């Protein structure tokens, strides 16, 4: 066996230049592929991360009807039963964030506008998404606060500022009327225009009183200790809740539409990747084919001496594998710092694209993902390709006719 490895290894260095060219073509393909995937994944990660952090959380418990028909009447009673379930999964839950969200009309002396009223627990909300960092004026809400916090865009539209008073009008629990006047205590910049132009925050207790819901919430967000084990935690919760009344949704279910959109996008990248893989495959195949043709006489010699076809085939297979392994390993070694660099220094964008992205509250850059799976997957795919190509010389070696090769 050792002699087979020695032969394969030394054969690689017979045509140093060709070997190096083939290795570097594999290397560049791996590098390009990882960069591509890292860039695409980076954008998705950023989007998902911000959606999960600001809006959906990892897991939500809702009333069974809320997802299909979001309404104040389809709220979840946050009672001892739910508390007990949370308690039982205490070890896996970092914290939970209750929210009561509903449509509301907001009015000043000369302006009226429809908005979303968010009843939040200020401390838990901050823990989830650092909302306090978005405060641009006034003070952040306190628990049981009886004031309001306004998104900056909405404050501009209504032409109000800290200290002004607003009238809120809405439909409360089971058809009751919800009405009240509230002072503006603080203003937050929520960046994404659609959200920034129609969001109002109120303390959860005040919102529950305003809508007359008692101890009800529209969603109870669960933040897991380990986000990687979201599915498992969701399963545990699903087994404990009363499915007739409650429903457990993960961020993947909550963001289903967005994720579907991304999958569609991934198809485009897949085509690019396929082209890359085909280039690698052909490069490798070409090298191996020439090696086979050049060495017909040598194969005839080896067979004459009594070396088994299987042994010669193993030598050829090793050669193909060595080349691609070298390419893959070097490709990964080089792409790790490159991806890491882009991860820490995302490519800055300019022009319309930059503006569009900035509108959504993101930095105007192309982010990269440093997910180790990217490297592993690319390495695996290229290795599988070269493994398959390595089978070609094996097939060929078993078909060489000694007397013909000897000529």
């Amino acid at each position, binding site marked *: 066996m050792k*002699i087979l490895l020695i*032969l394969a290894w*030394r*054969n690689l*260095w*017979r045509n140093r230049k060709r070997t190096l060219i083939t290795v570097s073509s594999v290397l560049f393909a791996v590098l390009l592929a990882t960069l591509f995937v890292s860039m695409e994944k980076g954008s998705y990660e950023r989007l998902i991360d911000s959606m999960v952090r600001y809006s959906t959380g990892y897991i939500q418990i809702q009333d069974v009807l809320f997802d299909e028909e979001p309404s104040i009447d389809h709220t979840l009673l946050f009672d001892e039963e739910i508390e007990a379930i949370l308690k039982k999964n205490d070890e896996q839950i970092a914290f939970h964030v209750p929210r009561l969200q509903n449509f509301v009309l907001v009015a000043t002396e000369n302006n009226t506008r429809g908005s979303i009223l968010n009843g939040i627990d200020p401390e838990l909300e901050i823990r989830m998404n650092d909302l306090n960092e978005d405060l641009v004026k006034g003070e952040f809400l306190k628990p049981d606060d009886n004031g309001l916090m306004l998104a900056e865009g909405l404050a501009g539209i209504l032409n109000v500022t800290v200290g002004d008073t607003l009238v809120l009008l809405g439909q409360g629990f089971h058809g009751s009327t919800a009405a009240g006047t509230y002072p503006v205590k603080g203003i937050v910049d929520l960046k994404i225009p659609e959200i920034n132009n129609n969001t109002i925050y109120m303390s959860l207790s005040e919102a529950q009183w305003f809508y007359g819901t008692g101890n009800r919430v529209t969603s109870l967000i669960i933040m897991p200790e380990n986000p990687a084990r979201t599915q498992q935690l969701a399963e545990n919760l699903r087994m404990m809740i009363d499915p007739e009344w409650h429903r457990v949704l993960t961020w993947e279910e909550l963001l289903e539409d967005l994720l579907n959109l991304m999958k569609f996008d991934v198809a485009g990248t897949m085509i690019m990747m396929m082209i890359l893989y085909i280039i690698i495959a052909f490069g490798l195949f070409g090298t191996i084919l020439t090696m086979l043709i050049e060495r017909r*006489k*040598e194969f005839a*010699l*080896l*067979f*004459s*001496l*009594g*070396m*088994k*076809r299987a*042994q010669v085939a193993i030598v050829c297979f090793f050669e193909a594998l060595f080349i691609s392994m070298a390419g893959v390993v070097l490709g990964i070694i080089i792409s790790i710092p490159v991806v890491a660099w882009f991860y820490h220094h995302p490519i800055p964008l300019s022009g319309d694209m930059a503006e569009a992205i900035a509108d959504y509250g993101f930095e105007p850059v192309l982010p990269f993902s440093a997910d180790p799976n990217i490297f592993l997957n690319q390495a695996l795919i290229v290795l599988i390709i070269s493994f398959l190509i390595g089978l070609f010389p094996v097939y060929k070696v078993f078909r060489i006719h*000694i*007397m013909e090769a*000897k000529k």
Partner: protein
Amino acid sequence: MKTVIKTTNLQKIYNNSVAPVKAVNDISLEFKEGEFTAIVGPSGSGKTTFLNLIGGLDKPTGGEIFIDGTEISTMKESELFDFRLRNIGFVFQSYNLIPVLTAKENVSFIMLLQKRPKAEMEKRATEMLEQVGLSDKLNSRPNQLSGGQQQRVAVARALASKPKFVLADEPTANLDTESAFNLLDIMEKLNKEENITLIFSTHDQRVIERAGRVITLVDGRVSEDEVGSSRFEV
């Protein structure tokens, strides 16, 4: 003396040309242990074809080949591979050595495939390279050796594993006169010392007289078979 190789009515007909070519035509011969035989004849007389047949590299279209009493022409390919490895040493006209291995590794190669103990292999390879006068070239690669030196390494390899017999197809054809005689000297010496049957083909009159037995082929047939002629005349 023991018979190592025996052919009966051996025949190889090539059908792929305009008319069928009887490259080997009804050859019945015996080779005894320790013989040093030259197969001579003009180009196209069937020397290579005959050696390939008794070396188990090619299949006859008629007749039989017995090696130590075993009929080899009916063997399966995989059996033949193993048979060659265990019993036959080869020296070809050119392209004898594995380019990526050193002289010593080339000489050890057959023993390595036979899975001989490492120490024995080392000792034998060094000894054989000494015998062919290349003890200073143990670690040279084939491309660092002259044509004559390469053929000597090939002879050392063929004999190192102590096969039943060695077949050398025109081993001197690409060599100058001096190297050719030198190689013949070595082959003759090793044939005697190791008592290994050695059959070589040539169309070179200069080297024929070194052989103990000279078989002349014409158009695939044996036209002459002289034993011990010239050597005893000197």
